[in-house]
């Protein structure tokens, strides 16, 4: 019931962009503040990340979605370290929004939930989590879904995309037909106020982001990132997208990886606008409007 109420509210707000923007800003500001407070001072150590995973499960439950812990162990980033160090271990959190038909391909939508030691990680990457959760509400409210949507909150991105690499491998090992992966990493800083974003996307998907950005008067630059979670999926041959603030254009958060990366230093209007952009593309996708 709650899920449908949120969906209906999201749908109504979608008819009125200004209202949608304001409501989204308020919702995301509240989430980032709440998440930051619940996971203070950071989401870096194993204990801190365990708490963060629990909070995310609760947040999914609040939205009528069933969160699932997916533990993993993974080799070290450099193979020779395997002779010295123990393996990585962590927990990705996922939730599924099923398609209207059972054999539908899967679209992964995610962001990482860990942060650097000592940093509350509001921009890096509670901003991405806020976007994913907001978009999830809109996708769940869509009555006819051509794709199953797998929401994924990745662990240990800051260690070198460890969690996303493990999840990508797990998903492929189960034989899932993955259409594409969409990631949001650091989407809440716009120091010069130009609304600009960067998108790393394959040829098959970039035009859809470009068109959505043009409709919202958002300057978009196509880039290629070698870091962030989408690379884990791209490396396995999956079409993968990452949207973020203007990192390569030198307008990314100066608070990144610092104790000052808090909800107070986020540009919530910018975050909400970016969220609506990704939501627009993904709604087109799951409606079947994008091949």
């Amino acid at each position, binding site marked *: 019931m709650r899920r449908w109420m949120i969906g209906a509210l999201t749908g109504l707000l979608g008819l009125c962009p200004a209202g949608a923007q304001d409501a989204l800003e308020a919702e995301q500001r509240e989430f980032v503040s709440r998440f930051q407070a619940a996971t203070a001072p950071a989401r870096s*150590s194993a204990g801190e990340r365990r708490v963060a995973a629990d909070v995310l499960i609760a947040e999914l439950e609040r939205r009528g979605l069933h969160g699932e812990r997916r533990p993993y*162990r993974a080799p070290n980033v450099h*193979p020779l370290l395997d002779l*010295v160090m123990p*393996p990585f271990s962590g927990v990705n959190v996922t939730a599924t929004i099923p398609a209207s038909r059972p054999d539908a391909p899967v679209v992964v939508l995610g962001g990482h939930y860990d942060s650097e030691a000592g940093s509350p990680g509001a921009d890096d990457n509670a901003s991405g989590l806020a976007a994913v959760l907001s978009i999830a509400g809109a996708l769940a409210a869509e009555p006819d879904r051509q794709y199953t949507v797998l929401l994924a909150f990745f662990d240990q991105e800051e260690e070198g995309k460890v969690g996303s690499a493990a999840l990508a491998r797990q998903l492929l090992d189960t034989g899932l037909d993955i259409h594409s992966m969409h990631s949001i990493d650091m989407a809440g800083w716009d120091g010069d106020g130009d609304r600009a974003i960067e998108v790393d996307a394959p040829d098959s998907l970039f035009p859809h982001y470009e068109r959505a950005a043009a409709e919202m008067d958002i300057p978009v630059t196509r880039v290629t990132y070698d870091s962030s979670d989408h690379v884990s999926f791209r490396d396995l041959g999956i079409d993968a997208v990452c949207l973020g603030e203007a990192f390569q254009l030198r307008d990314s958060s100066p608070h990144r990886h610092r104790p000052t990366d808090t909800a107070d230093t986020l540009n919530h209007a910018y975050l909400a606008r970016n969220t609506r952009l990704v939501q627009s593309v993904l709604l087109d996708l799951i409606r079947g409007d994008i091949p």
Partner: protein
Amino acid sequence: MIRDLPNLVLALSLVAFSVRAAIYGSVGSFVPLGFVLTVMALLLGARLAGPRAGRIAVRVWGAILAIYGVLRLGLAGLLAFAPVSSPHAIANTGWVFALMSVLYLAAGIYLAAARPDRVAPQPA
């Protein structure tokens, strides 16, 4: 018992690396497995080549173990004093890691310096 100690230390050192190989094999990394199989093959080959070659091989393995222990201790010291952002590295190079490193170092020195007649004795 004392006479068997070098063989016991040798066996324990190989078991430790075998456990590591099994753990990493289960997560898709086979570097430790390749390493321990290579070491075992070389030790076995040297043993089959003759008692003297077998003893030399055990001593070389002891030297490698000692270097391994020193490298681990160096890594732990480096991570203790240098600013590192990896929580994985920080969490896994604490006192247990240092203690294990000391044990590897001690085992290595012991095997490298053990009296020849006590290392890998041949059956009478």
